[in-house]
């Protein structure tokens, strides 16, 4: 119990140092290694998640600005289309008016021409008729003259 033995101390020191080596190799290193690995994994996942979130926010901002410009563009396009339609409408109306005017003019001219022709025809026919009537009168007068003679 109380007798101090040099060899016993030496053996115990060697034993404890060997046990230290064994424990370090078989217990502390593997377990702490696993814990460290897990910590690294979690840290990596956290930073990944952060990166992803940042990326998503960036994308969202991009889309939002894009959406804004697209909306403005659409508005502009609609406005432009409306203006164009309006000018086209005016143009078409004008064209239609000139066309109709032209048609009216032509119709009027034609009517006048027709009237002229009809009158001329009628005149010529009347002249013919008058000529014929005169001839007839003349002929019957000759006959009468002859008869009376």
């Amino acid at each position, binding site marked *: *119990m109380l007798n*101090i033995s040099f060899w*016993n101390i030496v053996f115990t020191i060697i034993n*404890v140092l060997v*046990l230290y080596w064994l424990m370090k190799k*078989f*217990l502390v290193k593997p377990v702490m290694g696993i814990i460290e690995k897990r910590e690294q994994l979690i840290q990596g996942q956290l930073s990944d998640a952060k990166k992803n979130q940042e990326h998503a926010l960036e994308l969202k901002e991009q889309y939002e600005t894009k959406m804004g410009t697209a909306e403005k563009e659409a508005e502009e396009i609609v406005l432009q289309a409306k203006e164009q339609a309006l000018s086209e409408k005016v143009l078409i109306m004008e064209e239609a008016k000139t066309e109709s005017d032209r048609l009216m003019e032509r119709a009027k001219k034609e009517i006048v021409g027709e009237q002229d022709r009809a009158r001329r025809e009628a005149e010529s026919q009347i002249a013919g008729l008058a000529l014929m009537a005169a001839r007839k009168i003349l002929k019957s007068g000759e006959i009468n003259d002859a008869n009376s003679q």
Partner: protein
Amino acid sequence: MDAFVESLLEELNCEVVFTIPLFGGIPVMESVVVTWIIMAVLTLTSIILVRNLKVENVGRKQLMLETAIGGLYDFFEGCVGHHGRKYIPYLITAALYIGMANLMGLFGFKPPTKDLNVTIALALISIMLIEISGLRQKGFKGFLKSFAQPIAIMLPINILEIFIRPLSLCMRLFGNVLGAFVVMELIKLLLPAVVPVAFSLYFDIFDGLIQAYVFVFLTSLFVGEALED
């Protein structure tokens, strides 16, 4: 009564198990043999427990192992600080070894810590660890200077501490284990039935683990102190 004293002394004596026929015979004591058994048990248990550890989807066994070793690691890291990390595996080893040694009585072995030589050896390793850690941290000059801190008049006390610290470590552990053992034997002699169970819980298990804790805790505190600037 004489028979009791004799049996008690027989229990307390550390027998020579066998002798190595070298240098005129090297005696191998019982405590050394029990230490070998403890080493084998601890190493085999570690190898079995450490098999197929996983990073993800850990089982309950691994969770308990990680809690125990990680807890010890964090506890010692708190004592020795960041610089003392490389000494933590030794402190864990010492805690496991002394704890196991104090509990060996439950399995019918003589606890190695009941042998003064074992506690002397442990204390020697501890003081070596403390001084070497200080030497490595501060360099030779800083190490010598640290003896005159905080003031020069502390020099003799600081030098005495080199001897007092291992002595107190060794005697505390040895005395507690021995005292617990003697008290338990006396209780068993007086009241052989039922009562010793309650006392055995305290003296064999609780006291043994507390002494292991105190030993490594003090060692880690001294190491932390030696590492401090």
